[in-house]
Structures are given as C-alpha cells and as structure tokens.
C-alpha cells in the first residue's frame, strides 16, 4: 500500500512539473506615474566602484533614461525602422546591421563580423508583442513594461537609432549608486521584498505555482500603493528606477578579446544577492531572454 502512495506522489510530481504554462495569463495593469521618456542627469565626478569600493571618476556629465526602454517605445522603433529599411525580416527574426568587432582570437572568443544580427525574435511565445507581417503591436497590459526578449544588438540598435548609446558598465554603476556612499542597492543598504521585482519577491505580477516571475511596469517601485500592494520608493540617488531587479540591463562595453556583452542590475528571476550594484552577468550578444532589457544614455 505504501508503494502505491509513493508512486502516486511521484507521478503527481512529474505531472505537475510537466504542466503547461499560460504565458498570456491576465496581468494587472497599473499606471506608475513615472514617465519612460524622461532622462536623469548624472554629473561628472568621483564615485566608489564595485564591491570593494575602488575610487573611480567619470569626468563628464551624461544622462540616462529614468526607466528601462518599454515595450511600447521599442514597438515604435521597430515600426519606424522596418519602414525606413534600417531593419529587415529574416525568417523568424528581425535583424539589423552591426559593423563588427576587432577579433583577437583570444581563448574562447567568438568572432563578431560585420553583418546582420538578430534584434528580436518573431513568434517567440515569451515576447510581449505581436507582428502581423506589417505592424508591431504591444500585447495589451505590457505597454509600460520593460522591453524584453531583445538581443544586445537589438538594444545597441535602438539606442543608436536615436543617437543615444548603451551606457558603459561604469556609467551604469555610477547612475545606480550615486557618489555619496558605497551603498549595495540603489536605494540604500538593505533590501525588502517591496523594494524591487526579484525572485519570490511576492509582487502582484508573480505566481510561483504556475508561470513564475513576470516583469513589473517600469518605475513601479516608487512608493505608491497599487491595489493595496505597498511599494517602497526605490529610486537611485539620481532618480533612476529599476536599477535593481525587474530585468537585467545590457551595457555597451565591448571588451578586448571577448565576444560576451555584460548586463547589470539583476532581474525578476534572480535572488536578491544578484541585485547588488556590482553584480555582473554576461552572454553572447545574440542572446535574448524574457528577463533581459536595457536603457540608453546620452550626452546632455
């Protein structure tokens, strides 16, 4: 009899693990009041970089987007760029030209030649947009969510199209930490569940028994209360939101002898330790994921 019970338990576990995930499950819609078109000024000056507080200096002013690029913003870009010929459809993906990197044949380095590369995949069920052959549209409810399932080339291409750039890792870090102290998180020394969207942070967008974590609208953690869910104001010292959690953010550095591109900030899919300002992640530039997005920087 005990064996039957054990078999039933194991079979149930297997069946539960094979359950399909409804990627289009209804998502709550909230207006955060934070404008995704706004920019924050990061003044020139010294700051403490990295886990071990190395003195660093950025000797120029620059601006960074207050939030990550949203799905709506990226759809506008795709629709314009597809029409003007900057981008094209190549099978199951949207591609754009990248001029290539210098190849040094360092161990493990993969050559990035001058050619077309994927910006976003088409027909990926995890993407938050649709394409009818002519026009890109946002899946309703995701307009103010961060753009995801976008490759490094796709992020680089977006920023470049508007004469912006991806922030360097150093620029990103200063924007997240500020220059006054060595805080590990953009808002301070400790992290609470309602500071950011991270793994099992119990935000209104996650359901760990089925689809798991989902993105939250950009600027969601701004001290507002949404349907009873109280957030803490988690802006960085320069007023940037989502510099920890929600989605990893591509940065712009191309390092000598590496094809990898670096990401910062942690995401909805990582534990709180990965939301610390200095934590890095990286992947090949064609990589895309429902947990990776970006924001741009520009000269003032």
């Amino acid at each position, binding site marked *: 009899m005990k064996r039957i019970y054990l078999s039933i338990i194991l079979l149930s*576990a*297997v069946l*539960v*693990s*094979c*359950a*399909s*995930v409804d*990627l289009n499950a209804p998502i709550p819609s909230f207006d955060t009041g934070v404008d995704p078109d706004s920019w924050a000024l990061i003044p020139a000056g010294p700051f403490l970089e990295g*886990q*071990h*507080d190395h003195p660093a200096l950025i000797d120029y002013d620059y601006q960074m987007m207050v939030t990550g690029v949203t799905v709506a913003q990226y759809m506008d870009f795709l629709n314009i760029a597809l029409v003007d010929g900057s981008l094209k459809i190549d099978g199951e993906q949207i591609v754009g030209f990248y001029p290539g990197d210098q190849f040094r044949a*360092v*161990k*493990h*380095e*993969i050559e990035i030649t001058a050619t077309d590369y994927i910006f976003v995949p088409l027909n990926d*069920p*995890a993407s938050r947009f649709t394409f009818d052959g002519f026009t890109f549209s946002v899946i309703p409810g995701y307009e103010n969510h961060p753009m995801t399932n976008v490759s490094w080339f796709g992020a680089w291409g977006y920023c470049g199209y508007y004469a912006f750039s991806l922030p360097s890792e150093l620029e990103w870090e200063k924007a997240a930490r500020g220059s006054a102290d*060595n805080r*590990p*998180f953009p808002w301070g*020394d*400790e992290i609470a569940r309602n500071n950011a969207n991270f*793994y*099992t942070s119990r935000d209104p967008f996650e359901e*760990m*028994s*089925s*689809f*798991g974590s989902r993105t939250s609208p950009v600027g969601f953690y701004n001290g507002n209360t949404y349907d009873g869910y109280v957030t803490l104001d988690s802006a960085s010292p320069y007023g940037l939101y989502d510099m920890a959690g929600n989605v990893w953010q591509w940065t712009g550095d191309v390092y000598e*002898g*590496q094809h*990898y591109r670096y*990401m910062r900030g942690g995401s909805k*899919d*990582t*534990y709180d*330790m*990965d939301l*610390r300002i200095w934590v*890095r*992640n*990286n*992947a*090949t530039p*064609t*990589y895309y*994921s*429902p*947990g990776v997005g970006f924001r741009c920087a520009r000269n003032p």
Partner: protein
Amino acid sequence: MAKRLGFLFRSTKGLILVAIAMIGLETAIFGMLSGPLAELGVRDFVVRFLKMDLVQAEREGRIIILYHSIAMAVVAIETYMITSLLKMKEFYKLAVRVLITVGYILTMIFGMGFAYWGHNWILHGLYITGLSLIFFAGVLLVIALWPWNKEYYQPDKAYSRTKKGLDMERVAFFAAALTTVLSALFGAVPGSYFGNGFETFLAENIIRVPEKSVLDLSIIGHLHIMLALIAIMITLIVGRWLNFKGILHKIAMPLMILGTVVLNLGVWGVVTPLEPIAHMIIYVGATPSMLAALMLVIFTWDKLIREGIAGIQKPNGWQKLKALLRDPLRFGPMWQMVFMNFTTSFLGIFMAVRLDEIFRVWPAHEERIELTGHWHVLSAIIATIILLYYGDMIGLKGKLRQVYGWSIIILSDLAFGSVTIFEMKRLFITEATQQPLVNTLMLLMDIGLGLLLVVLAMMMIWRLLDLFRKKGRWTEEVDHELSEEVSK
C-alpha cells in the same frame, strides 16, 4: 564526565562523532540563510534571532569562511580515520589528532564568529590559527605515513606491493596527504594577500574573465584540487575499510598514485607557463584515479555478491542482485561513487564536449548554476560516504542498518539527481516555461536534503542520549580502532 569527554575527544569514534555533530549543527543553522528557507522568510528570522551582522558586500567572504570551516571538519574526520586505520607511531597519532582537533574547532567557531557576527579581528586571528594548526597536523601526518619505513612494509602478497615489500596503498595515502599539504599552500599564499590588494571572490563569478591573475588562478586551482584530494582520500579510506586486495588492488594502487601526482601537477601548472596545457594534464591525472576507484567498486560489489550467494548452488540474477543490495552501508559508498559520475563527471565531460553550444551561448548566471551545483553535489556525496561508513563504524544492525543506509542513499540521490536536472534544464526547457519544473525539482531537492538532515539529527540525538547512559554504546566504542574492524 571525564570518561565521556575522554570518549568524545580521545577515541577515534568519539572524535568522528563530535566532528559530524559540528558539521550537522553548522549546516542546520547556516542552511537556513539561503535557498527555500530564505524565500520563506526563515533567513530574516534567524538573522534577527541570532543577532547576525550581515553586510551585503561581505557575502562572498562569509561564504568562503563557511566552506572552509565545514571542509576542515571533513578533513579532520578523514584524518581520524587514517590514523585509526593505518599503522603509525603513537606519538604522531596523538600529535596529529590534538593539532587537527583544536585546529578545526577553532576554525569553525571563530571563523563563523568573525564572518557572521561582525568583524572582530581577534576572532579572525583565532580562525587563522586554527587553519595553521590543521596545516601542521597535515605535515605531521605526512611524516607519520612515510611508506619507506620497513616497519610499514606489506608482507601479504595479496595486496599491492613492490618486490621489496613497499606497501603501495600506503604510498597512495602518503601521496594524497603530501599533495594535500602542498595544495593547501595554494590557497594560503593568495589568502595571505587578502587585505593587501587581493580581493575576495567566488571562483564561479569570474569564470569568464579572460585574463585572470596568478592569485586568481591559484585560488581556482586550490579549491578544485582540495576537493579532488578529499575525494581521493575517502576512496582510499573506504578501500581500507572494505579490505580492498587482490589483482584489482595491485592495479588500482599504482594508478591511484599516478593519478594523484599528475592531477596535482596539472593543477599547480595553472600558475606556471604550463597553464595552456594544464587542463590536459588534469584530465590525464583524473583518468587513472577514476579507474582505480572503479576497480574498488568492482572488487566490493563482487565481494558483496559472493558473500550473499554463499551456500546457493546456482544463484540466478535476482539472487545476485539481492546479495549486492543486502547491506546498504557497504553497497552505498560504492554506489555513491558510481552515481557521482552521472551527476558530476559525465556532466562535466558533456558540457566540455558541447562547449560551443552551451557555455559560449548561455548567460554567465546559467553557467554559475551549473558550476555551483556541480561542486556542491560532489562535496555532499563525499559527506554521504562518510555517514555510511560511520553507520557501520557504530555497529548499526538489522532493520536500523537498512533504514539508515537506504535513507542516506535514496534521499541524497533524489536531491543530487534533481540538482543535476536543474543544472541542465536550459537544454530542454525555456526560461519562460520552466517554473513548474523548477518548483518540482526544488521540492525534490528540499525533501531529499531536508529528510537527510532529519535522519542525521535523529542519529545525533540518539548518540547524545546514549552519552547519558552509564553503560551506553559509547563505552563499547572507547577503545575500538578502525583497523580492528576492517572487513575480512
């Protein structure tokens, strides 16, 4: 009271019991700070309740001290076993045990005190003192194991020996002990630079940095080789316990010696101009070591089957299988070694073969999951082998022996198998649809490891209660040496 303290701190089985209890206690307390218990909010409660002082930037340093303190207790257990199984001068045996016992206890208590309760540098000094004592114990152990002393020559031709009688098994123990001491320096040298410009890091976090410093490489080499040597040593210990001998022993011991030496040369080579071919040397060294372990597995399982079918005229396959599985405490260590290949060795080879499709494409954090899981499983498998041997050591019999042994095997393999699937999940499931699978795997891991800890806790409570009995089991264990209990 004095008798009980004498048992705990002077007898082999008492010393092993104390070290297992210390590891169990540390695992139970600090295991609550991560994984599902952190998700459930238990971590926050524990931190508040125990008044821990956890600075975010010091997480990596804390973990390094945690790993070291657990590893030192495991090294102490192996040392107790070696000094009880192998012949050596009484002075060395006593000196090694005193040094390593004081050393690992200082390391555990003051290391964890420093790491988790504010940075009191006196505690750090005591932690380093503990590590240093363990190092000196290792040096003394190497001297004690010197195999070219004719007193220790092997007279029995059933065992691996040279024509003159040099005991090749003792040479294997000696080689493992000597290289362990030397490889400890590999970590100690960079460690001495901490605070002088060299910064704390976890190896899995810098795996993709193309230009690593000599000190970085040294640390990476250190952690790999120390774990490999702990694994080699437990293989030799189990072989002695199960009285490994015969033709397989004669082949296995030279292979083990060769493997140990070459493996170490490969790892040490990472900080020399040999670095480009160091991995190749490591593969060359690992192969004979693993072959030697395979021979031990074949020997033991063959022996178990032969013993189990004794008296049966023409045993069939089912009877042979029953014979093989009838004693989980002797079957288990070998099975865990075989199982290790599915969870770590084969997995590592598979990843290496498909490097361009996996690690060149996957994000670094996926690679980190694989690497971290890989060595956690390897460490935990070594721990389960120790627990299985301990079960035999304390004379578990009958149903209790079956329940204890099979619980350890099944629960740990359930957890390790789930960890392995978790590491590999990106090969067969997308990020967007993985959550139900992740939930199931996490549940299985937690059930496996959680219940395993419950089994361990029950045994520890039983041993604790036994200490209150005037004529408890402890009184029978006071004078026993493991060499007296080697399998026939």
